[in-house]
């Protein structure tokens, strides 16, 4: 599989009617991933639209990952880490916070719907917050509509 193979058309619903948003979450393994685990253990229900990429820390997430997701036609990207002060590596989320506020504003400046890239702090004990954030995210992305901006190479 190379870059070109992963074209956005591949797994997209043909019709806008049965379109379901595809969302990627980059979750730090100490807090947010564990929070999502807790949502599971607590049997909290949320829509199945999110796929999780497990990373050691929100500080690990390279802005290029987010960019790649968006140009590949992913409808929404979430980066989630520990709350400030809770980072397992003590400071990783501070760096992420700074990095992604710049990216978020730049993307908006270039005409990418701000709903498509979001961030959250979810701790290992916030299973309910995880379920809520996914629900809200899916709802918001549904309103934003499918990410077709990059579909055709103009």
């Amino acid at each position, binding site marked *: *599989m*190379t*870059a070109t*193979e*992963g074209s956005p058309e591949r797994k997209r619903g043909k019709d806008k009617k049965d379109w379901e948003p*595809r969302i*990627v979450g980059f979750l730090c*393994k100490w807090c947010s*991933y*564990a929070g*999502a*685990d807790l*949502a*599971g*253990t607590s*049997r*909290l*229900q*949320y829509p*199945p639209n999110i*796929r*999780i*990429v*497990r*990373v*050691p*820390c929100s*500080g*690990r*997430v*390279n*802005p290029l*990952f987010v960019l*790649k*997701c968006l140009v*590949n036609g*992913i409808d929404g990207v979430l980066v989630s880490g520990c709350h400030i002060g809770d980072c*397992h*590596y*003590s*400071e*990783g989320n501070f*760096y*992420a916070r700074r*990095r992604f506020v710049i990216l978020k504003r730049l993307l908006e400046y270039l005409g990418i719907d701000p709903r498509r890239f979001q961030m959250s702090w979810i701790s290992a004990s916030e299973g309910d917050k995880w*379920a809520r954030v996914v629900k809200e995210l899916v709802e918001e992305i549904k309103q934003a509509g499918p990410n077709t901006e990059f579909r055709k190479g103009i």
Partner: protein
Amino acid sequence: MKIGVFVCHCGTNIAATVDVERVSQEAAKEPRVKFSTTYRYMCSDPGQNLIKEAVKKHHLDRIVIASCSPSLHEKTFRKCAEKAGVNPYLMEMANIREHCSWVHQDRVEATAKAIELIRLALAKVSRNKPLEYLYIPIEKKVLIIGGGIAGIQSAIDIAFANYPAVILEREPSIGGRMARFDKTFPTLDCAACILTPKMVTVSQSKHVTMHTYSEIEGVKGHVGDFTVTIRKKARSVDINKCTGCGACYNKCPVRVPSEFDMGLGKRTAIYIPFPQAVPNVPVIDRQNCLWFTKQKCGICKKICPFEAIDYDMQDEIIEEKFGAIIVASGFTQFNHAVYGEYGYGKYKDAITGLHFERMANSSGPTGGKIIRPSDGKEARDVVFIQCVGSRDEQKGLSYCSRLCCMYTAKHALLLKEHNKDAQAYVFYIDIRAAGKNYEEFVKKVQDEYGAVYLRGRVSRIFEKSGKLIVRGADTLSGAQIEIKADLVVLATGLVAQPDAPGLARMLHIPYDRNNLFTEAHPKLAPVETITSGVFLTGACQSPKDIPDTVATASAASVKALGLMVQDRLQREPLVAKVDAKTCSGCFACIQACSFTAIEEEEIEDKRLKKKRLIAKVLEGVCTGCGNCTAVCRMSAIDLEGFSNRQIMEEIEAL
């Protein structure tokens, strides 16, 4: 590449919502998948055996296990892979339980999602690299920072296991705060009687080295191999020659307030802080010594029979290697001078608990008499105010200092024992006496020693006609109270040492907003820190009484000894790695590394045919957070196990 996919039913936990058979069939259709199957409990022995046999039979070289969260069973399946002859890092898990079957109800949706999750894991595993465990040699020596009861207990425990321990203490003697106490609650045994034997044990142990009157200057390295720079301050007395005969301080003409006695007594310029000091070697206080201030006197040098006095002694900087570090740096008292309503600390007869301890001590500056420092008269009406600085967000600390209730009760008791006519009034908010025999102790003080307990915080203290007027309230009766007191004892809270943040930064351990060091986990790892090889004990982590301090000291020692007994340390190889060819040497990574795990390295650039600097990861120090990889513009630094290729492959598979 031959990948095997193993889908777990987890009883009905997964199978009830996810059609595991279909998942397995779909997985088998993916490229590179050579084998796919399901089993009821993949983590069970038969389940693991199934994996091993499949690996053997189908010559699998990579494994994907679709089951529960990796937080739960990643280690299990890594080991299983290893036993099956596959590199443990060529195994990836798809979390189809916590992230799928448990959070969805629609069988079709959940099954489809499970298939995708496996596809994601397949994408990642296809880019995994076989990794080898890292091994770090261990320096068999433990550094203990702080020579109070916590440090002393740690040293004794480590020496008992025949490993060398080094105590670093900035005061001239070990003993710490406990050496100043009179009696200890709730048993009332005298602090000196139980502490001195321990101090002697330490001083006589062949395994313990003491650097007293010394400060820590810097820490480099990582678990197993810390290099610590220590400043041994000039004591002006040769520790090897001195026998502790005391001739020098008996003849010294200078008198200054004694720090050990909280300024209630006097000491000489060449002094030992207290009679039981260990080492029993005096130190010259150069700020006050006539020789150093006026180049006069010199009596101590003349009189010393062993020629131990050395006015020219300089600070000495030494470097030592350690395998582990125990932080026992203790606490200090809250400074009540911020309380304007209590007189900004200017009333002589409003003292702190530690002052009271020194006064109550029969070998202390007042010979065990509880007096008013202002006029030396015996105190009859003594008001104790609890929570000074504690539980006060406006002027002090948000937390409860935990011991003040108990030591105040003890003081109320001691007061009565020292002076039958005296009366104790204790202003409290809540009595927190959760400890073995603590509640009984407080009740005893109230019932048998007649201490009057008043529930309310004091609003104001002021001086009038030589007495201190204390205005408080008893909220239980709804009354305002005014007491004309001879003496007020403020139960000041426990706070972190003022230089705690500096020490924390040196050791790369986090600290909270109160400057208390943060443990790795508040419940399950209370003496560990996130920096491996650095352990916490005593009040530097949170306010603790003596039993708790001793318990954490022994706990920290066991953790340190756990490292000492190993030949070498196995670590997960999930650390950052630099590609020399791609690195430009901008060192954005060094700046962004919270653990100083990256350093500069000079290499010979073959293409440019000259030497240049690039980044190098210290594998022993790297914690694998991956922050460096995201700040590297050229992606020259990558994280094993969560590499750029792995993550990008996952994104492409979505």
